[in-house]
């Protein structure tokens, strides 16, 4: 996030008067992708500077409502009340662009013997009222080497994260909260780093952040059914149970520069960057 601010600062100080500046803010899941896009776009259209910063989907949408950004990135769909608020504040209707797909990976330490979990088992670990406190509660006989007391360390995200909100809805449903006592980190990168160093831990993030030092689990919709690993293919054909859309929102009819940029994000060059960043391009209809 800090680097994003720094980048924003540099971009702002570099941009001269004749440069068009597009303010782009929001989801930490998308921030790397948006930055890669912005850099590539600068090569094509040097007169347009795109200032990208993170902070979380909620932060981006809040900025859109307040009218301080041109494009808000979000890893969850905008809520109806947020749309209405934006309409009230700025007098413009929010426009939605689906820029890519992301499989939400659930991952554990490599020494964890589990290879897959069902959605119910994940809900048992994370959800309020879930009884899974130790790894053997999840599946009888599971022992994680190097993990004291076999205790599950739940790693979650801060509550303005789109990943947090999507994960809650997808795993726990509309009306259930996360169990108290999870470690609420403020970035996907931190979640990965922590799981990498902690045998007891389980965490979740966008697929793009997964490194080879953590083990992404294979997820099954129901206990007993075949599980699916997160990948480009399984996210595209929607067989992976927790895949989601990644959004960009603009306020009202986008200006010429913003519109040109949004169109460019659907080009083949932009799609290559999506794949490189670890996400999935929107399949052509």
């Amino acid at each position: 996030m800090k680097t994003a601010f720094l980048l924003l600062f540099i971009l702002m100080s570099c941009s001269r008067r004749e440069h068009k500046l597009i303010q782009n803010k929001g989801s930490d899941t998308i921030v790397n992708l948006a930055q890669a896009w912005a850099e590539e776009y600068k090569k094509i259209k040097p007169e347009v500077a795109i200032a990208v910063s993170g902070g979380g989907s909620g932060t981006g949408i809040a900025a859109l409502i307040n009218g301080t950004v041109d494009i808000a990135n979000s890893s969850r769909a905008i809520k109806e009340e947020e749309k209405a608020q934006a309409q009230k504040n700025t007098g413009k209707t929010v426009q939605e662009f689906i820029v890519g797909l992301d499989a939400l990976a659930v991952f554990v330490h490599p020494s964890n013997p589990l290879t897959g979990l069902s959605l119910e088992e994940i809900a048992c670990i994370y959800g309020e009222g879930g009884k899974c406190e130790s790894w053997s509660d999840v599946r009888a006989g599971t022992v994680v080497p190097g993990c004291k007391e076999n205790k599950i360390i739940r790693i979650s995200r801060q509550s303005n994260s789109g990943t947090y909100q999507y994960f809650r809805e997808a795993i726990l449903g509309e009306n259930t909260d996360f169990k108290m006592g999870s470690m609420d980190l403020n970035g996907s990168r931190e979640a990965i780093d922590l799981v990498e160093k902690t045998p007891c831990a389980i965490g979740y993030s966008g697929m793009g952040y997964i490194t080879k030092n953590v083990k992404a689990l294979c997820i099954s919709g129901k206990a007993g059914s075949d599980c699916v690993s997160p990948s480009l293919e399984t996210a595209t054909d929607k067989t992976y149970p927790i895949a989601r859309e990644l959004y960009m929102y603009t306020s009202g009819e986008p200006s010429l520069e913003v519109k040109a940029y949004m169109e460019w994000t659907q080009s083949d060059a932009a799609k290559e960057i999506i794949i490189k960043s670890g996400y999935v391009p929107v399949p052509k209809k």
Partner: protein
Amino acid sequence: MEVKLTEAPVLAMEWRKKKSNKLKSEIAIEFIIKVGGYSSIVLILAILFFILKESYPFLMNNFKFDEFFLSTNWNPASVSKINYGILALFVGTLVVTCLSMLLAVPLGLACAFYISEFCNPKSREIYKILIEFLAAIPSVVWGFVAIMMINPLIINTFNVPIGLNVLNASIILALMSLPLIVSVGEDALRAVPETYREAAEAMGATKWEVATRVLLPAAKNGLMAAALLGVGRALGETMAVLMATGHSIQIPQSVFDPARTLTATIAAELGESPKGGEHYQALFAIGLVLFILSFIVNLSADYLIRGRRK
């Protein structure tokens, strides 16, 4: 008429007054210094006013005393029942601050004594630069040190499930406040007149006796100020503790349990909360609690130091 001798000083002062009236630069400087002095008061009042203003609607409408102070359930994003309870956060802040000071104050003061009294002048300069360099490390970097280095170290050394906990945060905070404690403590020791040391040494006191019997009482107030500045540093830190405590809402049962602090909660959540919303106001209420907390710390420090002087 003869000028009486006794009137001479009065006349001289009047002459000086007249002359100084002409010096506009002096008036200007006096004014600038005055503004500098008053500005701190104005700033503090402005901050207090701002925090009060933002948290006022929450305190008046949705504030439930027992929920706010006695519930451990802080869940502003809940889909079933939104709850603002700061007990766990409050305890987290206190525990982390106290433990970090238990680590940092003895170490910091010992370090100050060593640099000021025991080591030779050449290595003193090197030590000072190194210690001050510690202060230049940004807090996010400390956070990553907590996750990537201290976390696995604690897991392996103490054989516990998670290394992001009270102990980790205390170590990080101790390291962060160390440079402040050492620098201010060292200055306090340097400020003790050389004649004290010479007198003690002339009486046949060893270096150790000079340090503990002469310098420690003589520099007591300054050393206390050093420790309290450290407390302030630890109490106010956000980013590093956010990462090092594990940011988990629970009352820690041991130093190996994760926790969450008041400051980290504000840092993590203020960006998301729509301005003027209930969550936003509740965060400002936390800010008010922190303000009062630091006020109490400073006030008691002042009281202690004054008490000693009498």
